[in-house]
């Protein structure tokens, strides 16, 4: 059934369809309507879950960690400074290998205080060991939540489903709400190999020594380094599992495509714009305009930022003249994190071919600054004519 609703409601519907058992969250704009809606579902009885109101985001994630350790399917959502307040627990959840799903409704980070959209919040959590998915519209929000639970539980890693604050969270558009039976067919109940049980108390993730050791059962137990190595290895192999998720999802729901990237008019393009989230859909309008002028340009959205689908990205950009990276965040003191990651992927996979595309980096929409499609078109047109890579260029700056 198609409905017209906000992006936050799309997320809440996804969580309800996935039959999450425990929800703990603290309100922050623009995330608030997601968890408000979930609390209404529980109150009216259309969702059987425990809603735990907490006094902070740090506690919200702590509750999810505890609940997930007992085998509950959990959900939380946050934005900006709320996400940063969780930061310690974010690392913990990944190290503890818990399949949490969290929506990050992307918002700028203070100071100065700002409630509007950019990607600095989730990008700054890049190195925590969470999987990060980015959504371009409401259908992708709902579908990504469903895929995220399946993938997280398959690979024992937490996932952030990221979508643009206000631009998607508070905007209304049509999307299809799948039938419960289909979601149940796709996503079996969560049955972890190990779960805390009050009958058999245990301590989890206590001090773990730098080196391996023989445990009380006489077995060789991992040291901290082995545990962390396995997190890295299994995140890398989760890319293949994500492809499996996409394939299964397409079979059941009839929707889907490439699991890692979403190319638009890229096949014969000389230059490709690259980005995360709804901005890449807006860039399609610019690509269409420039195509009419005879400029061979395309745009590619990246759906997974971590694990980084470096091979898929490099393969899609092979033989192109230029790559133009648009970002709503940056690694202060250098350039956009995505631009750096992308150059690294190109170098790794294409340096041997003797041709590396020119990479340019543009920063846009910081703190919710309006991104005009005309400005994007102009920027993209000029970038296709440029032969030199410069420092990251800020679009729409008024200095």
């Amino acid at each position, binding site marked *: 059934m198609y409905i*017209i609703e906000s992006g936050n409601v799309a997320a809440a519907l996804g969580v309800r369809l996935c039959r999450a058992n425990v929800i703990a969250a603290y309100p922050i*704009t623009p995330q608030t309507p997601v968890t408000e809606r979930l609390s209404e579902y529980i109150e009216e009885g259309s969702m059987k879950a425990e809603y735990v109101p907490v006094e902070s985001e740090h506690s919200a994630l702590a509750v999810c960690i505890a609940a997930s350790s007992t085998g509950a399917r959990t959900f939380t959502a946050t934005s900006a400074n709320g996400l940063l307040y969780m930061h310690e627990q974010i690392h913990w959840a990944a190290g503890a290998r818990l399949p949490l799903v969290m929506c990050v409704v992307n918002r700028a980070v203070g100071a100065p205080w700002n409630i509007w959209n950019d990607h600095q919040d989730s990008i700054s959590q890049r190195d925590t060991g969470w999987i990060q998915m980015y959504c371009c519209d409401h259908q992708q929000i709902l579908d990504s939540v469903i895929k995220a639970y399946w993938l997280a539980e398959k690979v024992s890693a937490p996932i952030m489903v990221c979508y643009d604050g206000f631009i998607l969270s*508070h*905007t*209304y558009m049509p999307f299809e709400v799948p039938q419960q039976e289909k979601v149940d067919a796709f996503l079996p109940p969560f049955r972890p190999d190990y779960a805390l049980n009050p009958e058999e108390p245990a301590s989890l993730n206590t001090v773990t020594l730098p080196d391996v050791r023989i445990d009380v059962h006489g077995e060789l137990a991992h040291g901290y380094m082995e545990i962390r190595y396995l997190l890295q290895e299994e995140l890398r192999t989760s890319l293949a599992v994500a492809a499996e998720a996409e394939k299964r999802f397409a079979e059941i729901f009839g929707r889907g495509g490439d699991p890692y990237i979403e190319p638009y008019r890229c096949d014969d393009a000389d230059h490709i714009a690259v980005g995360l989230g*709804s901005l890449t*859909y*807006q860039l399609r*309008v610019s690509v269409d305009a420039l195509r009419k002028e005879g400029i061979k340009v395309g745009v590619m959205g990246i759906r997974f930022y971590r694990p980084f689908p470096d091979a898929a990205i490099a393969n899609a950009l092979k033989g192109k003249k230029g790559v133009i990276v648009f970002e709503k965040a940056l690694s202060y003191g250098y350039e956009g994190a995505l631009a750096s990651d992308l150059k690294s992927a190109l170098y790794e996979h294409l340096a041997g071919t003797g041709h590396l595309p020119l990479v340019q980096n543009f920063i846009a929409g910081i703190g*919710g600054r309006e991104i005009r499609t005309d400005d994007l078109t102009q920027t993209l047109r000029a970038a296709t004519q440029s032969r030199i890579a410069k420092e990251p260029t800020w679009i729409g700056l008024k200095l």
Partner: protein
Amino acid sequence: MNKEFIEIRWHGRGGQGAITAAKIVAGAAFISGYLGVVMAPTFGTERRGAPVMTSLKISREKICDLSPIQTPDIIVVLDYLLLKEVDVTCGLKPGGIIVLNTPKAFESYSFKGYSLATANITAISVEAGLPHGMVNTGIIGSLEKATSLLGIDVLIKGIEEEFRTQKPEKNSLAAKIAFERTRVRG
């Protein structure tokens, strides 16, 4: 007006229900075969009584551009007093349509170069049995009269669906009366 892609900007006050009105029109447009409908409120400044804006884009194809409307085809003004506070015609396409809730005489407005449609929605809504100040369903009748965009029936259905638990008949009656009494020029 190009009926393949239509941009409507709604001006109201926080709490007046401009978002709900735009949502009803969005739903009716989708049912009528417009695959792309995107309704985007202004973000972060919504307070009760303060001037607020909502964008509604309606397209035959999926809408990828979620940025705010720059050049609307139609503007809908839920409170005539906003004309003194907000430049409501900003960016309005030449020949664009203004739909205005006002108690003032139709002839007292000029809006050169644009089409104008007015009705006293505030009074009509009370006549239909709604509480004073509820104007967001009546204005939909005026919008349809001024534009012939979707047909009144699908909009009435949308209103009754949206307000199914809150006086659906009175809300749709307001739209029907407004549709009959709206005066249009240009």
